[in-house]
């Protein structure tokens, strides 16, 4: 048990600190969320800068555009960059999910051409799993891929695809056999998103933003060389991707605590900072224990990964706890602001209306990447080994299973 850097790690940290000091944007007190387009442009520029300096994807091998370092170096990088106002987690889905999928299943040539472009965010990647009739039951997906010669022809629809509107490529899970049971008839590919037959339609969310998209496939083509894993082996490949996703987001999932801590020290109630109020202090203490607990749990997980272990289903914890806490904090922050809490004006509300925006965006985080309920099932079944819910579709051929809205 040792939280101190080794001399080599301390050296790396100093080097990172110096580079960030010269290149990263300092945090401002008012913080706040920026517009979607502006955030995307900033993220592209930041990732390129990081890549040019050799710090992109620290744990990836150098020949694939990474820095060839360990998970611990990545933690050091994340700790240091979090002190600045930079969008360092913006392309986490590509680098965190699609990257490992390519690393595992793509050919050497594909890896050496595509991964460095992913590391620099020159190419943006998305993940195409969820469908209108396959949300929590993602293995119920119906987007069909049929082999014609050496090409797969794709027809169907994906939904809730983050960043699809900016994406050059996507990792896609398709139904390739409807005669077998649902888990056995899927295959994973990567697809060119800029080709004819791929139509991206942004979804207007309840908060007014459009982070997610619907993606329609109409005779889109995928060369067989872009298949990731065996035909029919898509489910196993997808589980590997999802496992990596949980590890990737566990470090960047916002839980709302730092912003809340800032707010309670600046906001006044009856002429005093609200942090002097015992009721507020009680909430602050509870939320801090969760904030610190998530951080320390992530470090325990990374220690295990650094020793050669796989990220386990325990990684679901950070998202499960952080997402709902983020929502509750935003709600509580508004309550503290009382009548003025409803004002969403960037210029008037604290931290550029961060809490007002969060209260409207937070419900989505509890659903994206596995709902709270799916996360609890994963923990119960995969970590605690509890029995599965009896399933009505067990042993049925996929084509005979009813799904989606039937009215």
């Amino acid at each position, binding site marked *: 048990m040792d939280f*101190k850097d080794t001399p080599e790690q301390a050296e790396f940290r100093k080097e990172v600190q110096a580079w960030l000091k010269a290149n990263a944007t300092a945090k401002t007190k008012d913080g706040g969320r920026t517009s979607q387009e502006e955030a995307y442009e900033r993220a592209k520029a930041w990732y390129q800068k990081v890549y040019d300096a050799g710090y992109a994807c620290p744990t990836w091998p150098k020949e694939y555009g990474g820095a060839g370092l360990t998970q611990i170096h990545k933690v050091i990088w994340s700790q240091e960059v979090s002190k600045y106002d930079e969008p360092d987690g913006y392309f986490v889905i590509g680098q965190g999910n699609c990257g490992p999928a390519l690393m595992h299943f793509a050919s050497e040539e594909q890896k050496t051409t595509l991964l460095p472009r992913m590391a620099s965010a020159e190419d943006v990647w998305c993940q195409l799993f969820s469908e209108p009739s396959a949300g929590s039951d993602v293995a119920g997906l119906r987007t069909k891929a049929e082999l014609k010669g050496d090409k797969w022809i794709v027809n169907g629809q994906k939904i809730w695809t983050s960043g699809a509107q900016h994406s050059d490529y996507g990792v896609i899970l398709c139904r390739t056999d409807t005669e077998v049971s649902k888990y056995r008839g899927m295959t994973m590919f990567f697809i060119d998103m800029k080709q004819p037959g791929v139509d991206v339609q942004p979804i207007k969310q309840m908060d007014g933003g459009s982070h997610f998209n619907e993606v329609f496939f109409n005779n889109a083509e995928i060369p067989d060389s872009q298949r990731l894993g065996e035909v029919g082996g898509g489910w196993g490949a997808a589980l590997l991707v999802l496992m990596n996703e949980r590890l990737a987001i566990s470090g960047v999932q916002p839980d709302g605590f730092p912003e809340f801590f800032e707010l309670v020290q600046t906001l006044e109630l009856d002429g005093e900072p609200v942090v002097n109020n015992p009721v507020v202090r*009680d909430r602050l203490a509870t939320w801090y224990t969760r904030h610190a607990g*998530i951080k*320390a749990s992530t*470090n325990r997980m990374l220690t295990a990964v650094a020793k050669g272990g796989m990220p386990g289903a325990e990684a679901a*914890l950070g998202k499960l706890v952080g997402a709902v806490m983020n929502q509750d904090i935003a709600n509580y922050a508004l309550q503290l602001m009382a009548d003025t809490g409803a004002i969403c004006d960037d210029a008037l509300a604290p931290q550029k209306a961060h809490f007002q925006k969060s209260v409207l965006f937070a419900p989505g985080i509890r659903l994206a990447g596995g709902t709270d309920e799916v996360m609890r099932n994963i923990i119960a079944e995969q970590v605690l080994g509890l029995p599965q819910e009896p399933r009505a579709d067990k042993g049925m051929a996929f084509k005979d299973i009813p799904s989606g809205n039937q009215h």
Partner: protein
Amino acid sequence: MNFDFSEDQKFIQEQARNFLSSECTTARVRQTLEGEQAYDQALWQQIVELGWPATAIAEDQGGLGLGYLELCVIAEELGRALAPVPFIASVYLAAEAIKLGADKAQQDSWLPQLAAGEWIGCLAVQEKPGALKLGQLATTVTDGKLSGKKTAVLHGAIADKAVVLATENDQPGLYLVDLSASSVSRKSLTSIDPTLPLAELTFDAVAAEKLADCKDIQTLLDTLYDRAAVLLAFEQIGGCDAALAMGKEYTVGRYAFGRQVASFQAIKHKFADMFVATELARSNAYYGAWALSADDAELPLAAATARVSAIDAYYECSKENIQAHGGMGFTWEFDCHLYYRRAQALSLILGGNPQWKELLVERLLRIKAA
């Protein structure tokens, strides 16, 4: 960075777990719970022979010269097994108070005795309900004689000596008192967890030796409580694990509506929440363990975080274990209440959750201001 216990420490933990699972069954814990004895003397003797009280005492003071990390893994196992022994009172409280407040000569004399289990120590500070206020102590020392009354003294009825907080010439300090003296009267109090029994101690001009190195008593007590908070957090997560395992085993084996009770999402999600609370508490306790063993400046915040987190997690796990058992969980016969009682008792030693939450916030703001 390495956020895990070493292989050696894990080995110590495994040995402790094996020993306790055969020697400290819940049937045995119940002998103390049901009042057949004030503590499990035979088990305590075995624990002394294994050298556990000597774990974090230096070799030249009769200890094993290991450290707090080794003591943490043992604490987790004692908590898991609900061990009905005065380990908290004697090891985390009395021995640590002596390490912090006694001078070298006193330490050289007392610590080897504590390490060898020659006497059992306890800590007597509390005089009335609520947070301890140094300026309001009614226990006083005059001409080396201590008088006053202390309450809620953990294992006070069976300990041989007590470290007592008292005021001499308006200066608070710690004093070692021999509890076998005739000027000490002890009363066992009915406690929520009889396996962690409390007592009231009344001192009537009893001879007391001042711990000679107590300079800033508030800082000393804060450090003492912070150290104990981390060690107690490990006892608590051990208990969380045990309660969760018990609920799991019962609901996996029980059928209702034609299926395993543990296959219902209402039950699975309950266990998932218990697991999450335990993992957060465990991670916070690990951080506390590191700060404790490294004597890091972050100990005060890390200890308060570990403490609040562990109190919350054990309450959740012990109460939901009862719930998952249904009516059987409410019987005396089932062990659910042993964990529930222990969760309550552990959460109250050294001040309850509201006190520690307040400390946590004070410390968080202090770090922010620095």
